């Protein structure tokens, strides 16, 4: 029972921050899809199924948050690179603000409880 609750909670938490993390990964750089997945995979517990990232990228492209460019590769087929659009950068800034506010709020709650 307790385990079910915790699993469900971590799943919901992960879903919410994964979209933010995808945009954050692209901040100030252009990355290939596989690179994005690998970088997100380095964050412990963030990506359970690597494939989850691709529908998010597709949705961001449709929403105009990211744009793609095909770049020829020496190692195989042309690679599709993602980068943030001005709309995506604005959205990322808003998400960062919201994330910091929530994090600070929770930290202060924890400090109150600890003191």
């Amino acid at each position, binding site marked *: 029972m307790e385990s079910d609750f915790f699993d469900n909670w971590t799943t919901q938490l992960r879903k919410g921050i994964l979209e933010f993390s995808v945009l954050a990964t692209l901040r100030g750089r252009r990355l290939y899809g596989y690179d994005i997945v690998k970088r997100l995979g380095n964050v412990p517990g963030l990506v359970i199924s690597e494939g989850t990232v*691709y529908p998010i990228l597709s949705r961001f492209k449709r929403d105009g948050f990211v744009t793609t460019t095909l770049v020829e590769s020496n190692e*195989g087929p042309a690679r599709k690179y993602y980068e943030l659009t001005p709309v995506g950068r604005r959205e990322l800034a808003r998400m960062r603000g919201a994330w910091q506010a929530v994090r600070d709020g929770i930290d202060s709650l924890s400090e109150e409880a600890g003191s």
Partner: protein
Amino acid sequence: MIRLTNEAQVYLDDYLSDVRSAVSGHSSVSPAEIEQDVRDHVFAALEETGGQITAPQLAAVLDRLGPPAEWVADEPRSIWKYLGDKLKPVGHKAVAHIKALPGEAYQAGRGLAARVRGLSPDWRLASIAFGLFALGMIAFPLFPAFLIASYFVARADVALARERGETLGARRWLVYPSLLIVSLVLFLALAAWPIGPAVGLSHEIPRTMKGDVGNIMHVSPKAVQPVAATYLAIGAVSLWWIIASMIVVRWPGVPGALFPPFGSKIRRIDAAIVLLLSGAVFVCWLSKIDTAVRVTQEVLWQL
């Protein structure tokens, strides 16, 4: 350069088929793009291994990608995809029933089920649509029922192809027969329905009054009813077409939704031309309205 063993290739094709199935019908994402991204991911992940890739090596990469069904589980899906998923168990039950049939019927049914299952997923719906249409032609008294079933399957195929960003290609020859017939009947019914009430109204002129009405209209008593019916029908149809074309000018997606895929070729400018022509006919019709008013007054007075 990476090469997959036959077993690994089948494994990858199955997985990509699951990806297509899981993400199609979700309007917020592009299934074709996701499939290509996943394919690129797999090849990028296997680049380090190099050479010939075996099924277990591929399985390790696909395991990390995870089950596609979980990727977009919470997102809304299109009604066609939803119906497709709901109907899948019905299809499986039908196959189970076929397997339970005795003797030759079992063999024939099993062969048919195997052929449908063996079709590429892209061609499956189109083939079923044409199969239903052909069955309707063979069992002709049941043609309307088979035609309607074929029409809905064909519409599902067109909707899925659009969602995947694909063109129908050669598949269109399998889905067009039922789509064309049903769309044509629906279009004619929708375009010409005002003729019925207009002709019905013209029959309201009492037989005893046809002489007087004929004098007002400057026609013989015998021609009163046909002329009145024609006049009323032209007025009603032109007025209806003005309304219908205004709707299409305001919402150009309506014809595409009603008559896919043919209706999507109708553009706002086409509707504007129909609006102008219908308006011109209606103005001509109005030029004779005084005669119609006098006839109406005469009929009402006599009644």
